[in-house]
């Protein structure tokens, strides 16, 4: 299955991905207008940085998703064919059990809308907003094998002094 992968050494924690994610999921999908929306937009991807090292948090679509197990309303399911963990907001009750259950803490309890949210791999859009927005091209939407290849090529470039 294709997932989001990050070449973390290239991440400057500029938070461009957070802004792009929030705008993509807003009503107007336009940065300037998103500021004025009734429900403030919010990202589903998080950048943290400590001592010059960045870390990126987003849904990893676990093989044995704890959030799915915790969900009482059936909003969270795992697609058996792709392995994708899907959150159907319309069924969400806002009980926050999934929020507590997620070992990565990437499910958002939105108290404004009273529903849970997580990365939805920009379902319905032609490209993932965060991947497109990263100024360092650190983010990739690909399979694990493809990502391993990307990392290999990047490290070869570094070795070659490119």
């Amino acid at each position, binding site marked *: 299955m294709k997932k989001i992968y990050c070449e973390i050494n290239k991440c400057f924690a500029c938070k461009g991905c*957070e*802004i792009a994610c929030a705008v993509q999921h807003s009503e107007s999908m336009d940065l*300037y*207008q998103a*500021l004025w929306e009734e429900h*403030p937009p919010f990202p589903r991807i998080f950048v943290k940085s400590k001592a010059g090292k960045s870390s990126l948090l987003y849904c990893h679509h676990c093989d044995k998703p704890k959030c799915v197990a915790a969900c009482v309303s059936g909003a969270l399911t795992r697609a058996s064919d792709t392995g994708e963990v899907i959150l159907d907001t319309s069924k969400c009750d806002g009980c926050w059990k999934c929020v507590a259950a997620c070992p990565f803490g990437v499910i958002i309890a939105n108290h404004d809308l009273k529903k849970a949210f997580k990365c939805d791999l920009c379902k319905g859009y032609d490209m993932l907003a965060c991947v497109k927005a990263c100024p360092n091209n650190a983010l990739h939407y690909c399979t694990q094998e493809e990502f391993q290849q990307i990392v290999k090529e990047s490290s070869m470039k570094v070795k070659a002094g490119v």
Partner: protein
Amino acid sequence: MSNNKQRSADPAGQHMLKRAEKEGFETVWDRYEAMLPQCGFGQLGVCCRNCYMGPCRVDPFGNGPQKTVCGADADLVVARNLIRQIAVGSAAHSEHGRDVAHALLLASEGHGGYEIKDEVKLHALATEWGIKTDGRKVNEIARDIALMAENEFAKQHGDLLFTKRVPERRREIWKKLGVMPTGIDREIVEAINRSHMGVDNDYRSLVFSGIKTSLADGWGGSMIATELQDILFGRPRPLRAKVNLGVLKKDQVNIVVHGHEPTLSMMLVKASRDPDLTALAKEMGAEGINLAGICCTANEILMRHGIPIAGNHLHQELAILTGAVEAMIVDVQCVMPAIGELAKCFHTEVITTSPKGKAPGTTYMEFHEEKAYDTAREIISKAIKNYQNRNHSKVDIPQEEMDIVAGFTTEEVYNILGGKYRPSYRPLNDGIIAGRIRGVAGIVGCNNPMVPQDFNHVEMTKELLKHDVLVVETGCAAIACGKAGLLKPEAAKDFAGRGLQEICEAVGIPPVLHIGSCVDNTRILTACLEIMKEGGIGNDFNELPAAGAAPEWMSEKAIAIGHYVVGTGIFTLLGGPPLPILGGKNVTKLLTQDMEEITGGKFVFEPDPIKGAHKIINHLNKKREALKLKPMMYPVEVDKGVTKAEAGVPVTV
């Protein structure tokens, strides 16, 4: 695969872009697309790099930090950034003014090849500034003017001289707000000081300081440039000329002059007419020397000498791509650093001339005002010799070449409207009062790859003309509308509403008046003064049925101009991007709503040119109502009102 019609609404632009794509040349449009999405923090103005406890950013959606390291909130960050931008824009215009004052001083001493062309304006300005003229030689008076103008930059006390032109009530407003400008350099330095970490920590105080700095540009540096340029080079007179890339000729030495200061370009015009150099061109196998311009310097030599214009801001690379340009001679402002590299793909030589404006991949030939004419001859000579290196099989000049009329000024409007024996603004005022003309709109400013080139300028202008709005234009906006055929007198028949058409036909003017370069935006201010003096349509700028717009702006100069227009009390609409202030909600409210009660002017951000035209039309209608003017003589059936304009939402949904 890019759609060239999305990139440029100008067929010549589309033609060259097709070539660029086919042959693999990188243009500003490619670089713009590669830069997307641009940094949201930057667009909203909430990124602060003023000190190195930072850099910082405020989260516009409220999730992350709401205060920077020093404790600034989004409004403070936005306001500090804004006044730096106003300071830079004002500095650009003001340095231009400084250079003109210096050239006038040289002319008064007989140096450099500069002469004093307009003695009438010289005497008028001298009288205005209290300089004795009786029995004195022209060059003595000119010297005094030049020294007084130079002093405006250095002044530490008193008000800028041109602020005396402004109605008393406007001066009172400025004094009360603490925005009366004193010295041009001083206001710029003060603004930069205030933006330093830990100086002015109040967003309101910063915004008004920014307005003060911008007034030192509009009623200072820029106005000095315009007035002294008129004295040195002559006041423009209406003339016919041609615009667009088709003005480049395959059998002539094509020399494109780009940048801003006529102290250089005027000399190049003079040198290009030198018979020795014309002979040299013929020796090289060319039919002659063809000088053409890009950007504001183009407008300066257009307005006074009818020199053709190759294009506006986004045409600078496209001109080189024709393969027909022997030299592109540049000075300062709006010159893309990319042109040096691009020119290397052709025989074109990019020649930088200003010690303030060097660039990689170019040839530097320093232009000194003291040796102006000699240097100009050297530069032209170099360009002519380059003709031998042209690869004629690589030449591709688009056919587009449009007729225009340009050369209108505040003074000229008197003559046009009233004739030689009764010059007057009365016919214009009467036209507005009687409802033939709804009002006046100034459409100004740049090109921006965020907008299909020229699209917003042309569409907004056409919509305004349809509604009987007289349009005056400067800068790249004027060039845009020129290319689209709106600067021809015949344009009144094709595009203007009935009332405006009647006036244009009676007087013999196009419905869109080209009044010059970007420093000539000050002609809009002086024209407003004449309109008010003539009477009947308002006693201060904010009462006039007038508005300004920069539908495709991009530069910090535009930010400065916008602020001096708003500070003077005039409604100012920006198309393309909004000001980079939306991250600061209070700053945004101050500049787009509250400012109307304070100075009488305000900013409106509207990316759609038709909606923008209607916001302007609504504003003009509002002013007409307040003045109790007659209703429009020929009302347009669809007078769409756009209610969101008053709803407090700065950007239309």
